[in-house]
């Protein structure tokens, strides 16, 4: 119970810190607008197909996530507060606190992108099977957050060791991206919910593998 309340306390510290200094919501929103606009620009003259649209949807999410999710550890490391956290919290508290934060960030991010997409591409971006869409977005956000959190922890330290970890981590993210793009395209094409079960299984498996693996490996990454 007390471990849980620590985790919540860490989470709320990050939220406050975010609200205080980074105004992530502000910048994140502008970022999403920017990303959508850029893609809109690149596609200007074409009528995008569901595959392209769902691809672009997740590309925007991916870029936004990658540019903001890693901050969570990098900022602790760069400001030298890692040790302060180590003094007050156990590694699992840190891991779950950061994971929750990243999940919350990704979920709000996908919501923002969804709203923007429905506004901007009102003619093409029509969610025909809402159930598939929302399950995909939710599982996708979780998946992103779980992969991004451990990667962020590694990247924060990798800087000091000069490793190629981030590059090695690609395959990991690509699997996730392909699956969510696939499922989103199904939702746009109006397939039945049951058709997407395969994708969902992959996503759930992915999330479990990522969080489980991260949880076990986190100690090694976190402690010097």
């Amino acid at each position, binding site marked *: 119970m007390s471990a849980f309340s620590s985790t919540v306390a860490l989470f709320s510290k990050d939220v406050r810190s975010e609200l205080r200094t980074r*105004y992530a919501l*502000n*910048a994140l929103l*502008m970022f999403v*607008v*920017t990303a959508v606009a850029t893609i*809109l620009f690149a596609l*200007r003259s074409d009528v995008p197909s569901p595959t392209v649209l769902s691809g672009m949807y997740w590309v925007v999410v991916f870029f936004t996530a990658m540019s903001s999710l890693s901050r969570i550890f990098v900022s602790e490391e760069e400001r030298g507060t890692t040790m302060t956290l180590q003094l007050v919290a156990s590694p699992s508290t840190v891991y779950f606190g950061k994971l929750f934060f990243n999940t919350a960030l990704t979920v709000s991010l996908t919501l923002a992108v969804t709203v923007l997409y429905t506004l901007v591409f009102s003619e093409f971006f029509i969610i025909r099977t809402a159930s598939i869409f929302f399950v995909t977005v939710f599982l996708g956000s979780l998946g992103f957050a779980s992969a991004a959190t451990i990667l962020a922890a590694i990247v924060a330290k990798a800087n000091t060791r000069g490793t190629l970890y981030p590059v090695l981590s690609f395959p990991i993210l690509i699997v996730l991206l392909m699956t969510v793009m696939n499922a989103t395209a199904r939702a746009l094409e109006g397939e039945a919910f049951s058709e997407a079960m395969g994708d969902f299984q992959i996503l759930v498996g992915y999330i479990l593998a990522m969080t489980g693996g991260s949880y076990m490996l986190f100690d090694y990454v976190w402690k010097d």
Partner: protein
Amino acid sequence: MKFVKYGSLGIISIVVLAGLGIPLSPSPQGWLEFPIIPGLEDKARNLFFHVPMAWTSVLAFLVSTYFGFRYLRTKEIDYDLKSVSAAGLGLLFCILATVTGALWARFNWGSFWNWDPRQTSIFILLLIYGAYFALRSAIESEEKRASLSAVYSIIGGLTAPFFIFVMPRMMAGLHPGAKGDPSGKGPLFEAKMLAPNMRVLFYLSLIGFTLLFIWMLQMRIRTARLDYESSLEQS
């Protein structure tokens, strides 16, 4: 300045009344009838609102950049207050121009948004304003906030000539006068089409909105100063 306040309110009331009230007729007689412009009809009335709003938002940007520049030169925080005040109004007018333009476009060109060059440039202006305020909110130190946002608005201003001259070259436009428009000038500005009375009202409207901007700017600067002073007393 009383003149600015009553002048702007008076002129804008005239523009609203006359712009919306004067009837259209196929063969206008004298000053109290507008010509019917084929393809625009009643929608032509938006000219008196949409265009001055777009103009004001650009003007506000220039004013904000100018005060930013003065701030960098003198480091007097008052210039920063002026600069933000102008930028805030600019954002407001920019949104208004976009909305009136989009509505106009919906009924004239068929959809709210077509990436016409002018639409694109007003969209960029919106983004610049948005970025300007996002930047300001991310800096705590007053002095840093003032100088960095001033630098940003100057850098933004440097790109303006490019999107004024480049954008129309790059993309086919729907706005009258754009690339690929045989008539060159738009129907409204072709001497034959834009009747003298519309023309007068249009320029009157430009003046009215400019005065309105000046009046609102003065008020905003005054409240910004008061806010600043009250926060001075608190600390």
